[in-house]
């Protein structure tokens, strides 16, 4: 095994020679002990002090291996990151192999999946990774052929010199390139010359997924490992007593381990564990507040009326303007807790050996997994390795390390490698939910129907700041008061795809429709009036780009034929989140007196689209997600325990419940931003506004199907 030398110079890119036929190019290498690299038999690695996080290696055969550092959970980063590297390298995509990198905080920064932030964070870094490699390969060819580098061109992994007629593939120049020092700065391609970026490149794991190869954490098995399932306490409770006799008596159960408020059954295979877990007799007692949904309704009402709130934004004088208003519009909106319910339940492998620990599985934050394990074991983080498998969905759930911590506790207790598996009931009752939130909006209108005052108070259950105070319509209204109240619930919460905005957008965009109606204005015109105000004479700080928002509003109105067909009842919604702008229009057609939701048109400005297939996927998936949870899904509590425990009562949207979705992308010329989240927030509002337009019923709570306003609306969903 070869060791890799430590690089020490900053702002410097060096390429190390290889003895076994591989050129390795990387960034920010200060410690390079990854077994993957050793497997490549690389002698030396280069380093550059800039915080780059991508790397690639090229074999003498011309094959290119690109490591993708960020966890892949369906956002398609494992395909789109390497596309960016390969673009600047001018690689032949057919010769690119993609490998998921393990956690390495010294090689990579921001090795996590969350906040739709990977692409904007890494765009330049990935491009430079590819461009720098290309530079030295070209320099190597120039030296070999004794021609000026400027006369050399590269296309699809082939380096050519037109005048001399010489050409060769990347692999032929690997050895020479390894001796050349790269510059601090490289010239990146003009976007118009992109050949891979902007094309529909297929999922790099497709074949493995469609033939049943082990890819996911739950698929990981190792000879000799134990399996475990865990019984957790209801929220606000702790263990009073454990009777594990019946569970231990199940054939195949080897251990029962109690830690914290959890009891784990350990055995050789999953089915006996499922049976044994049901036979555990655990008595619990209160340890804090034990809450039911009825308590939450009361708490919402109390805190909405409370004099105490955190003021998030204050412009002008709302008291005066509301007193003198021609009209005041007020409405309250509420959403329930929601589980993330990724199709692959939580699971993780841990092997604690002395002061070391090996972790393998699906996580959105491998570094948090490592830190958590280090803390439990009382060892330095460097003693923990984390291998990232493909994730069967995440939606924010796998930002938490609770299920990983369980594996560490159990492995330590039984002194053996173990894989913890949650079942669906564990997943729905295991906490870290999208917080329940209630909003109260108030708008003051003057005689000409202009919104001159705007108030928002959000009350959230473990939601932190439940507002986005610098988002639209802030900046477009003279007098604004935005407040947030947080209630510390015993029910745990966590980021859930498009945190806060996944419901705030629906509430706000529905409310703005209510205001437009009271102002006697068309919903699109009303929004454009506000945006024009924010553009020409902005009030205070703006967290969004007014022009880009106007861009998607106008294009969505155009693409959806807004207001043109009296038989089509439409609902409009627009939202800015995670650096991207998305406007959506829902179309409901009345057919024999029945409202039929037929289509959602979406216009997205996420800057440049890296992979049109992936972008379409994220927009449509976000809309299906936003629609499903707005329409159908509820999570309610009784004495600290969720009532919905599996997909028979926790209703997820199905294939027959999705309308046609038409997607458009507005090319604003900006660098790409992420798309895992931004298409979700506007959807609920577009649908609710269309339902109002078609039926006159205003839906102010989710899920829609459980609201009394919806009870006699026989909404059908049908594609054209």
């Amino acid at each position, binding site marked *: 095994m070869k060791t890799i030398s430590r690089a020490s110079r900053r702002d410097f890119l060096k390429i190390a020679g290889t003895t076994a036929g591989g050129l390795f190019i990387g960034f920010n290498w200060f410690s390079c002990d990854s077994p993957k690299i050793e497997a490549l038999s690389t002698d030396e690695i280069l380093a550059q002090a800039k915080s780059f996080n991508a790397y690639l290696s090229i074999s003498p055969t011309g094959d290119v291996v690109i490591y993708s550092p960020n966890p892949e959970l*369906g956002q*398609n980063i494992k395909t789109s990151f390497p596309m960016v590297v390969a673009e600047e390298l001018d690689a032949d995509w057919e010769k690119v192999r993609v490998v998921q990198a393990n956690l390495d905080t010294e090689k990579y920064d921001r090795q996590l999946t969350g906040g739709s932030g990977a692409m904007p964070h890494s765009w330049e870094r990935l491009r430079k990774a590819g461009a720098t490699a290309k530079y030295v390969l070209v320099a190597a060819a120039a030296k070999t052929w004794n021609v000026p580098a400027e006369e050399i061109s590269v296309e699809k992994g082939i380096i050519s010199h037109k005048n001399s007629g010489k050409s060769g593939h990347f692999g032929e120049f690997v050895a020479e390139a390894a001796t050349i020092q790269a510059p601090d700065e490289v010239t990146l391609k003009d976007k118009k010359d992109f050949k891979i970026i902007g094309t*529909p490149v*297929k*999922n790099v*794991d*497709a*074949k493995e*997924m*469609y*033939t*049943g*190869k*082990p*890819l*996911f954490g*739950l*698929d990981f*098995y190792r000879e000799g490992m134990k*399996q475990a399932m865990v019984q957790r306490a209801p929220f606000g409770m702790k263990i009073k007593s454990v009777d594990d006799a019946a569970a231990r008596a199940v*054939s195949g159960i080897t251990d029962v381990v109690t830690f914290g408020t959890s009891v784990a059954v350990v055995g050789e*295979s*999953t*089915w*006996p564990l*499922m049976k044994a877990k049901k036979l555990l007799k655990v008595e619990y007692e209160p340890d804090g507040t034990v809450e039911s949904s009825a308590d939450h309704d009361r708490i919402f009402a109390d805190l909405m009326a409370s004099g105490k709130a955190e003021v998030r934004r204050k412009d002008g004088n709302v008291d005066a303007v509301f007193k003198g208003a021609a009209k005041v519009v007020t409405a309250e909106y509420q959403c329930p807790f929601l589980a993330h*319910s*990724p*199709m*692959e339940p939580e699971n993780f492998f841990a092997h604690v050996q002395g002061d070391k620990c090996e972790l393998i599985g699906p996580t959105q934050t491998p570094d948090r997994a490592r830190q958590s394990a280090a803390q439990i074991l009382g060892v330095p983080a460097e003693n923990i390795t984390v291998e990232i498998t*493909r*994730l*069967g*969905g*995440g*939606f924010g759930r796998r930002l938490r390390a609770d299920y990983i911590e369980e594996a560490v506790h159990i492995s330590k207790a039984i002194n053996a490698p173990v894989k913890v*598996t949650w*079942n*669906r009931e564990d997943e729905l009752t295991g906490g870290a939910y999208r917080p329940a939130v209630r909003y109260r909006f108030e708008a003051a209108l003057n005689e000409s129907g202009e919104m001159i005052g705007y108030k928002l108070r959000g009350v959230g259950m473990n939601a932190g700041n439940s507002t986005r105070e610098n988002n639209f319509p802030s900046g477009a209204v003279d007098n604004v008061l935005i407040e947030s109240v947080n209630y510390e619930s015993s029910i745990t919460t966590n980021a859930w795809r498009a945190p806060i905005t996944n419901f705030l957008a629906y509430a706000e965009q529905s409310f703005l429709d209510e205001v437009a109606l009271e102002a006697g204005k068309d919903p699109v015109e009303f929004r454009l009036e506000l945006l024009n105000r924010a553009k020409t004479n902005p009030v205070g700080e703006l967290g969004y780009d007014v022009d880009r928002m106007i861009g998607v509003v106008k294009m969505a109105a155009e693409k959806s034929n807004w207001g043109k067909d009296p038989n089509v009842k439409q609902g409009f919604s627009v939202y800015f989140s995670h650096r991207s702008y998305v406007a959506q229009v829902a179309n409901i057609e009345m057919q024999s007196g029945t409202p039929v939701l037929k289509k959602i048109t979406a216009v997205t400005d996420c800057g440049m689209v890296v992979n049109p*297939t992936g972008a379409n*996927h*994220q927009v*449509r*998936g*976000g*809309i*299906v*997600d936003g629609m*499903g949870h707005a329409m159908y899904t509820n999570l309610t509590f009784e004495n600290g325990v969720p009532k919905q425990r*599996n*997909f*028979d009562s926790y209703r*997820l*949207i*199905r*294939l*027959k419940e*999705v309308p046609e*979705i038409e997607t458009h992308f507005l090319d604003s010329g900006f660098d790409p931003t992420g798309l895992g989240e931004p298409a979700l927030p506007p959807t609920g509002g577009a649908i609710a506004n269309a339902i109002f337009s078609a039926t006159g019923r205003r839906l102010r709570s989710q899920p829609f199907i459980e609201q009394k306003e919806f009870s006699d609306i026989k909404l059908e969903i049908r*594609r054209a």
Partner: protein
Amino acid sequence: MANYNLKINGKSHSVDVEDDTPLLWVLRDHLGMVGTKFSCGIAQCGACTVHLDGKATFSCVTPISSVGNSEVTTIEGLSEKGDHPVQKAWEEVDVAQCGYCQAGQIMTAAAFLEQNPSPSMEEIDNAMNRNICRCGTYHKIREAVALAAKSK
């Protein structure tokens, strides 16, 4: 514990398990065939779909004692080289996001098209409605099933 002889993907397998062990866990834990996925465990989501004598079946609620002499086909055995028309259509349409449910989706689609080689879009919708995709790839699923039907 009892011994069961199973016919899976054209091969014989013998396992020693409790009678009530679901086929899903026999495949995954005892035979190391992990292409068939666990998700709900109560026949609601279809991630665990396999074929029993060609019929799409939820393996998570199929006790091993009920399998008998039925031919079991899993995603690993749907085709030798991953080139079943449904698999090819899934690749062509680039269906997956996270990909976890897709083996079950493919197995449902393959059994359906065996019975109904030229379905209408409505029939496709009805057939595929039994499988959940949390990422919301439903548009691509129906597109891929329709493509597979055409190319069969």
